[in-house]
């Protein structure tokens, strides 16, 4: 299996994507922003199809559009409970509308460029077996950027995520942290789409993180566990796909769902 270059690339690409997704996803689920992560991938779809129209690579288009959308979503003031009690409801409505509009826009761009169905399928469901050296280098570069950003933001982000009202009172710059984090999520979503596709980004970004949070693991243990589980799901998906001929994305998404079900029954009922 590892004698083939496309499989070596696939293991490297899915490995870096998995570790990044596990770490970013842990904060995303903790902050209750899974829906925003999902929306960013759909916005990325419009960016990817739009980029092809003007001669750019789909990954670059996806990353750019998602980052811009991430900044807009992060700008939504969070504040403390007393200052902004109703923000979350508005935010979900806005995200839902932008998500649907982005999918529609992506569909329009696809029609304009008369793209074959296979290219749409690759965008929506991923094609990790088709990652070449150039894409791999870009993935490593973007993942490095994401990890650097996450390391810079991690401390105030954790404080603002676990105890937002106290963080606001102590002077954490919530809007700066939120915008920075949503940019990281946007980039991670674009990168993750290369492996799982836009529709299945949830599998790696949310699945492992939700499992670790369900277990109530403290931040360091939760982050490590989330990254390792995402890695196991990705590489496991590749191996199973090799032997069964079923798509990698299918095995990854199935593994994520089964992991959560297992944790659901294993975790202490009182948590």
């Amino acid at each position, binding site marked *: 299996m590892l004698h083939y270059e496309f499989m070596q690339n696939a293991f490297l690409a899915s490995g870096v994507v998995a570790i990044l997704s596990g770490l970013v996803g842990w904060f995303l689920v903790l902050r209750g922003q899974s829906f925003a992560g999902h929306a960013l991938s759909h916005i990325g779809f419009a960016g990817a199809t739009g980029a092809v129209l003007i001669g750019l690579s789909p990954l670059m288009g996806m990353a750019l559009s998602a980052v811009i959308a991430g900044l807009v979503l992060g700008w939504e003031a969070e504040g403390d409970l007393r200052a902004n009690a109703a923000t979350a409801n508005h935010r979900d409505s806005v995200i839902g509308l932008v998500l649907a509009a982005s999918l529609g826009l992506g569909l329009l761009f696809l029609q304009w460029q008369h793209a074959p169905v296979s290219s749409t399928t690759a965008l929506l469901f991923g094609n990790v077996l088709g990652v070449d050296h150039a894409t791999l280098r870009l993935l490593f570069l973007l993942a490095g950027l994401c990890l650097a950003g996450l390391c810079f933001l991690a401390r105030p982000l954790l404080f603002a995520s676990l105890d937002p009202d106290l963080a606001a*009172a102590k002077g954490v710059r919530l809007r700066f942290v939120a915008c920075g984090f949503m940019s990281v999520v946007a980039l991670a979503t674009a990168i993750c789409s290369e492996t799982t596709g836009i529709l299945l980004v949830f599998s790696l970004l949310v699945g492992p993180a939700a499992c670790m949070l*369900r277990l109530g693991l403290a931040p360091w243990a939760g982050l490590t566990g989330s990254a390792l589980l995402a890695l196991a799901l990705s590489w496991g998906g590749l191996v199973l796909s090799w032997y069964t001929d079923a798509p990698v994305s299918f095995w990854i998404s199935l593994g994520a769902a089964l992991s959560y079900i297992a944790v659901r029954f294993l975790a202490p009922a009182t948590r």
Partner: protein
Amino acid sequence: MADIPSAILLDRVTLSHGARLLVEKADLALKPGSFTVLAGANGHGKTTLMRALLGLHPAREGRIAVLGRAPRAARQLIGYMPQERRLPAPQLTGRALIAASWHGTRFGLPGWGRGLADDLKAALSLTGAEALAEQPLSQLSGGERQRLFLAEALLDKPALLVLDEPLSGMDLHWQQKILTMLQARCRETGMAVLMSCHGLDIVRPFADHLLQISEHKLELSDAAL
């Protein structure tokens, strides 16, 4: 000897919430090391006054200084315990929650190591919450959570502690232990405490001053009187 700035200084401060006037042209000076109880009926502005001290609520007019600085500039020196707070991850332990707030405004990786462990241990021991910190927040009673949140407010060794109803949900035994601890911290470390409370009888023996909000005025008196 250089002048020591007041822990809290209000100079003709007016506070309102929307169209509702809460405090009008109030003057106040509280010294470092003082223990002050803030009292007043519901809706008279106790929480708003505390939020104004943290720079979370702007004064309509007048000047507020905390430890000689503007409120926003003094936030790092203030330990705060809000009356209400969201807890997005109640499945995590109290230790995880408190550790996240340790120098939580700095950029970089989350805190870890001996420094954090020592500060956590010291803060938790002050409120008798060492064992509570190992349990998920969702499994703790209201009074137990209050002891954890108080430990969190004490974690960064603040020069001013602003506590909004810290004794609510706490049994009499722990109310007295917490008040004894706060009084001792004021005397030993020079930390000032401003604490809102409805049950004044239990607090009076421990406090230096009673600050009453009434009819849009602030009235400071000796707590023993």
